[in-house]
């Protein structure tokens, strides 16, 4: 006997996603209302990181394979967006190697960001065809190799990326609300994916690769799908980042960012969307607190503060502590479910039993 799904049931099923969106939106609203420009900027940066970490979750959380390479996709997306949106004059000066079509034109940031995301996805698709066949450790090392090679490439590709110097002249268009919008889109995407049969199939391979294959799951294909989708969002995050800083340096997309985003996911809990969101939230506050402590607290003439780079060391230590004492992360890999059981009416119960 089919039970009719009411609106309330849909609500309950999507609650794990809704609570996260509501939570983040509330935090953004509060900070925007109360805070100053500097805090606003910190917020935007945190939201961009959120998009990256959600992207990481889509792949790492569902496949169980650690990717050390996703920041390469962020880099690809960042530069691809800049290639489209920058003024022709700036492009002539800094990156004259671009094809004429791009050199002569300048496009709006929104379609550019989406196209850049697609380019990152394409890069993931191409590299993934080779990489996703590998398992476990070999795959992770291979993603690291891919990351380093793309980094080296972009570092040397001065006619397109300004190489080791900074590419300046990018319009600043990323506001906290823009970042929030894309962040929400990424969370919705992650949720839909993880509930889809693709997500389910991939998770089965995470638990037991051999059993999944025996059950007919094309593990390589599923990993590739997740890899591509995750790169799309990470690429867009890169696009937003360039338009947040107003400039881009290849060096930004190296180990520091890789570590920070990975640690946010790990601390929150690798295997759930809530883990990604909570990880970013908690770690962002922690990083801000440590940074403030570094610049010091002033008592009269004296400034007392932590030595430089303490926030990075602190970050590493927190990560290690979580790994040792709570390896499944703060959320233990669980989503936030609607806490109340639905009340069954008497008629419903008898209907179900027949």
């Amino acid at each position, binding site marked *: 006997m089919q039970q009719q799904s009411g609106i309330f049931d849909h609500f309950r099923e999507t609650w794990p996603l809704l609570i996260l969106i509501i939570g983040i939106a509330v935090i953004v609203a509060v900070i925007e209302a109360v805070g100053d420009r500097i805090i606003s900027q910190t917020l935007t940066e945190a939201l961009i990181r959120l998009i990256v970490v959600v992207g990481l979750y889509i792949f790492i959380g569902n496949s*169980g*394979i*650690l990717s*050390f390479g996703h920041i390469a996709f962020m880099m690809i997306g960042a530069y691809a967006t800049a290639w489209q949106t920058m003024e022709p004059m700036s492009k002539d000066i800094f990156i004259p190697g671009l094809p004429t079509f791009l050199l002569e034109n300048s496009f709006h940031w929104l379609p550019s960001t989406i196209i850049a995301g697609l380019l990152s996805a394409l890069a993931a698709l191409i*590299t993934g065809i*080779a*990489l996703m*066949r*590998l*398992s*476990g*450790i*070999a795959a*992770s*090392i*291979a993603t*690291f*190799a*891919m990351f*380093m*090679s*793309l980094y*080296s*490439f972009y570092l*040397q590709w001065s006619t397109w990326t300004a190489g080791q110097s900074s590419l300046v002249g990018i319009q600043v268009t990323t506001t906290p609300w823009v970042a929030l919008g894309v962040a929400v889109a990424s969370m919705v995407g992650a949720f839909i994916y993880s509930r889809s049969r693709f997500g389910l199939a991939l998770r089965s391979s995470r638990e037991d690769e*051999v059993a999944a294959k025996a059950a007919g799951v094309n593990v390589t294909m599923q990993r590739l799908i997740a890899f591509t989708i995750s790169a799309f969002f990470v690429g867009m995050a890169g696009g937003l980042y360039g338009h947040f800083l107003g400039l881009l340096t290849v060096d930004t997309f190296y*180990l520091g960012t890789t*570590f920070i985003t*990975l*640690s946010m996911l*790990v601390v929150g809990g*690798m295997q759930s969307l809530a883990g990604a969101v909570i990880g970013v939230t908690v770690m962002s506050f922690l990083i801000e607190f440590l940074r403030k402590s570094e610049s010091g607290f002033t008592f009269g003439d004296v400034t007392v503060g932590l*030595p*430089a*780079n*303490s926030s*990075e*060391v602190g*970050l*590493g*230590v927190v*990560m*290690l502590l979580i*790994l*040792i004492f709570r*390896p499944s992360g703060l959320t233990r890999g669980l989503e936030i479910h609607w806490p109340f059981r639905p009340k069954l009416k008497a008629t419903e119960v008898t209907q179900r039993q027949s």
Partner: protein
Amino acid sequence: MAYGFQVLIDALSLGSFYALAALGIGLLFGVLRLINFAHGDFITIGAYALIVPSAATQATLLIGGFHPLFLIPSIVGIVIVVALISEFAVFRPLRNASPATLMIGSFALGYIMQNLVIMIFGGRPKAVGLWSDLNLGVQIIEGVQVPQLQLIIISVTLALMVLLVVFLKRTKYGVHMRAAAEDFRMARMLGVQANRVIMLAVAISGMLASAVSLLFVVQTGILDFRMGVPLMLFAFIATVIGGMGSLVGAVVGGFTVGAVSILLQTFLPSELRVFRDVFVFAFVILVLVLRPQGLVVSRSAKERV
């Protein structure tokens, strides 16, 4: 002919670096099933231990100024201590964790180490002059001048490899280590002390890292807090293409990567030469796709299905 010889020496010399680093990583992987992302940072710390802690760009030698008979054991000792601290603080608490957790844990350790170096020494690269005479050429055969250092690198690597083989095959602890690498649980059931074997492996890994520290600093003359990262990456790649779990594979992988790198350097057209590393990585990915289990298949390979 002379040119070919030079290329050969270059390849062997670079390959030696990678082989030494790969051995250090391969040893820990064999015994602990741990991918030590911090291995490159062991190398970095060994190098920075030579100078006075300061942010100056021209480094002042501290231990580096001592007589070699004191310098070498000091650096080796320092890196071994750092490695052992890593074992107690990170690897042991994570002993029963999943491979993914182990990997991220060592990644975090490496990150902490790099930032500690920045804290103490500053983030800018430093110039350091250690035994720079060794970079002078020495004549081997007609018309070929080879830097003394390259020959030293190759011989030191060979010597260390021989020592390692002797240790593993002919000493009690070496045999225990090989047994533990193959079947840790069974070894323990026979009374092999788990923690001792691991500490020994960690110490040897540290010793190998310190060798790379010294040789690398003499050759490049530069200290940079990120200097260990490419070395670590190439070392990983060497172990992966050589075949994980096989020390022979690590060495083969190291020399292969070194050879490919030098060949690319030599034969790539000059515009593309800056992209040499990209090609090396592409080569690696190619090998992995064609032969995921690596070039040298270890007899104790994992899940057979």
